């Protein structure tokens, strides 16, 4: 019975509990409010129904009452607002060190790739208890990444990244929906999120299918496209040194300071002239149309990896990397 006629969605992430708590609070509050109003209406309707010889009593109004029933709700609203905002703030702030999964949405399919390189379509395997950050982009129209059991939803936009994160708390298989109308097979753009126990997840991960991590794929593309000629690991390059760049503040030529996040790296690859790093010339060619979304994701993953392992990073930026380059070709 429960499976065919559920009345409450599965609760499988840390966020789900806090969303449910606020939801239950609001349901209780609404029930109370409507009960109060409906009771009053019914009582008045019965008590003051028209009777012979009893005239209505004309009442002008009451400023005190008006202020009371404006101010009390206002206070309640402040509570709801703050409560909802706290949850939202957490939902939109991915914790540090989260496992990253790159998602490319297209009409009408989800393409997902793990940091370790595994690719999945319309299916996502994640372990229980680990923070997972989704880096989402779309190849065509706007989609929306929605996992009801995690209570998360994030629109997936073409031309930029959006992010979402969750920490699964319970193993199981859950719905993945596209929640933003995207054309003919919108309702067919569904999949599942499989939450595994850590051991099972490791087994799944080692099950193969990955051709190198995303960062190493990115490194290959980086070399293939000749990026390393200018973006060198020393200070001699004609482009900025990318080691340790990610997440840092970048001083631009026009005086602005921006944070080197995923969207910055993306924009700097596709339309380099948009933000010129201070001290460098706008000589980088435009890569819009030359790299697809998956390659772009790999490049972003690679630039990020330059933070985590300085040694590995250096190897990618120096001529030592030649052998790897040949491997690509």
């Amino acid at each position, binding site marked *: 019975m429960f499976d065919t006629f559920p009345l409450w969605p599965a609760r499988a992430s840390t966020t789900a509990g806090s969303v449910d708590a606020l939801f239950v609070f609001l349901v209780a509050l609404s029930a109370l409010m409507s009960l109060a109003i409906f009771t009053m209406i019914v009582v008045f309707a019965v008590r003051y129904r028209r009777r012979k010889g009893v005239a209505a009593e004309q009442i002008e109004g009451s400023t005190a009452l008006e202020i009371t029933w404006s101010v009390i709700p206002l206070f309640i609203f402040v509570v709801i607002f703050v409560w909802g905002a706290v949850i939202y703030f957490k939902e939109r702030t991915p914790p540090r060190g989260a496992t990253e999964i790159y998602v490319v949405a297209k009409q009408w399919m989800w393409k997902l790739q793990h940091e370790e390189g595994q690719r999945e379509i319309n299916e996502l395997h994640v372990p229980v208890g680990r923070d997972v950050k989704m880096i989402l982009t779309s190849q065509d129209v706007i989609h929306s990444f929605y996992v009801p059991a995690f209570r998360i939803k994030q629109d997936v936009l073409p031309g930029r*990244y*959006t*992010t979402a994160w969750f920490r699964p708390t319970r193993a199981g298989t859950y719905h993945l929906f596209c929640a933003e109308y995207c054309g003919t097979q919108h309702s067919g753009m569904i999949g599942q999120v499989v939450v595994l126990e850590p051991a099972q997840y490791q087994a799944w991960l080692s099950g193969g299918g990955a051709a190198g991590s995303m960062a190493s794929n990115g490194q290959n593309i980086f070399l293939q496209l000749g990026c390393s000629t200018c973006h060198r690991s020393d200070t001699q390059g004609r482009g900025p040194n990318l080691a340790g760049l990610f997440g840092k503040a970048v001083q631009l030529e026009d005086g602005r300071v921006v*944070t080197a*996040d*995923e*969207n910055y790296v993306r924009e700097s690859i596709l339309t380099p002239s948009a933000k010129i790093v201070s001290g460098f010339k706008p000589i980088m060619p435009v890569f819009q149309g030359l790299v697809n979304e998956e390659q772009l994701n790999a490049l972003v993953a690679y630039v990020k990896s330059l933070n985590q392992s300085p040694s590995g990073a250096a190897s990618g930026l120096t001529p030592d990397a030649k052998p790897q380059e040949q491997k690509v070709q």
Partner: protein
Amino acid sequence: MSEHIVSVKANVAVWLALLVLTGVTTGIAFVDLGPLNTIVALVIATCKALLVVLIFMHVKYASDKLVKVVVIAAVFFLMLLLGLSLADYSTRLL
């Protein structure tokens, strides 16, 4: 509401002022004032618009406050559109 008839002199004065301001705004665009260039251009445009609204469109002489309210309300709502949109665009991170 009796109509106010603006003198030819006043009208011509406004017209001359508008022409002068047009010249000024074009000229000053070639002077480097940094970010002030945009502000100066918009201030001059607003002065011109005010001249037209107040004198040419007779708002200054309107005995009825309603017209002023309508103008101010429309500008206010336009500012809401621009301002609240900017609230998003100026603080977007990811």
